[in-house]
């Protein structure tokens, strides 16, 4: 398998505070990789550093490199990372456009696509098949969706941008168990169709059962890594993250 994303010795800061102290990991094409860790470990920071969103919100890369298919993307403007590399980030807190309708949110995600009207229509169909509740609420202001529906919209939006690599920051947050399993089942389907996934989760148990490989992040450093089976069996990981 080819390496899609490679993060090398990445150090980032918010102002003067270092949040990541040189982390390295990689994601190969077609894989599901998960990044787990406690609150404040630096999981969201890692994803934000990859997408390099505009300041002031984004962390600043001090050292190290981020490679996509072997090319450094540190000098690429954030919108190009999405449009040219077909990456998508479903950010923490979903960040949907609450003042737009469901349909407008999805349409907006196709802004940079150049593959024509028909392909976009097909993807609309697909999103509405995967998330039937969105189809019923097309014309609704997305602010008024339930938390679970907003999460679906956030993932649907990423799909509309025609990504082949999707990064998700705690997609299970605020979802009832049933909806949560639905979401993970949908992600599995997408992965089976070739989507590469980098998943961040608080719920380490769930994440490791879902992913092929994982990394454990602790206060800005990677403290363990391996296949999901290895991590699930690791006594240290068990004790700290899996509740014994």
């Amino acid at each position: 398998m080819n390496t899609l994303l490679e993060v090398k010795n990445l150090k980032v800061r918010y102002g003067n505070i270092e949040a990541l102290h040189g982390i390295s990991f990689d994601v190969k094409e077609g894989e599901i990789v998960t990044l787990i860790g406690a609150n404040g470990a630096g999981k969201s920071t890692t994803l934000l550093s990859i997408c390099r969103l505009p300041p002031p919100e984004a962390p600043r890369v001090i050292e190290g490199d981020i490679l996509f298919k072997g090319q450094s993307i540190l000098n690429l403007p954030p919108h190009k990372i999405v449009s040219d590399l077909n990456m998508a980030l479903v950010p923490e807190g979903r960040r949907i456009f609450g003042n737009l309708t469901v349909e407008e949110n999805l349409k907006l995600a196709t802004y940079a696509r150049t593959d024509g009207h028909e392909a976009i229509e097909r993807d609309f169909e697909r999103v509405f098949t995967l998330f039937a509740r969105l189809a019923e609420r097309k014309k609704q202001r997305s602010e008024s969706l339930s938390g679970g529906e907003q999460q679906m919209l956030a993932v649907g939006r990423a799909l509309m941008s025609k990504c082949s690599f999707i990064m998700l920051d705690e997609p299970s947050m605020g979802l009832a168990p049933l909806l949560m399993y639905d979401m993970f089942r949908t992600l599995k389907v997408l992965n089976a169709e070739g989507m590469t996934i980098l998943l961040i989760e608080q719920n380490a148990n769930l994440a490791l059962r879902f992913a092929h490989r994982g990394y454990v992040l602790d206060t800005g450093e990677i403290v363990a890594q391996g296949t999901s089976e290895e991590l699930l069996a690791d006594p240290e990981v068990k004790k700290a993250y899996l509740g014994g």
Partner: protein
Amino acid sequence: MNALQFGSFYALIALGYTLVYGVLRLINFAHGDIFMVGAYIAYFVAVLLLGGEGMSGLGLSPGLTLAITVPATMILTSLVGVALERTMYRPLRRKGADRLYVVITALMAGLMLENGNLALLGASRKSFPELLQKVIWTFGSVSVTNLKVIVIVAALLVFVLLEFIVTKTKIGMAMRGISYDKFAIPLMGIPLDTIIVFTFILGSSMAGLAGILFAMSYPILEPYMGALIGWKAFIAAVVGGIGDIRGAIVGGFLLGFIEIGVVAVFPSTLRDLFAFSVLLGILWLKPTGLFGVAKTTKI
């Protein structure tokens, strides 16, 4: 008819305030002066093409001059707006400056435009050449000039066009998206700065259009002409519900009507006092403006 004509000027300028505010939550206090610059740009383009005022010019006919001056003014004025955004607002945005500083910067930018004009051209007033043969139409007891009709039609067309752009096109959706969550825009593969620049182009070209139409209606130009009219248009935008395009149009026309109505009954020195009292009353009853909704945006 005068009410509609004045209302049209207020509306065209108010649209620029509302667009920029709607997208960036920035009150672009320089906008009234961009209108003034628009009028001066129109003057120089017209004189250059037509000749006169001690310049030989190209000697074009008034009709052709008008046809070129309108788009040229709109384009050049929008460049002024974009220049303000690139040199003043964008660097502050990049540094995450507090909104207060950006507003103060806008205020200073406006003063710089006024005083820059004064320094460059002196205090002498410019008189705008006549580009349009005046025609008067009479319907019963009302008579209107062709220019007034053009002004009113222009304001309405601009309104329809902007409403279409903002509600129906992807770039319009992106503009609305920015107002809700700037951060998420690049995640959609959308270049944030491009959309912001587009917003300034739209707003300033409308101010340019207002500038040339105003200069044709009241052909005396002076550097401070944008100040009072800019304030009034801003207030019209707020009363209509700032950030809302319909609000800008309604607020603009409303102000036009109130002013003319007051003058019809009272001495004209009371015009502004009465007009602003009425607007204050409206805000007192509905603090978010006529079309405004209490915003829950979180930027």
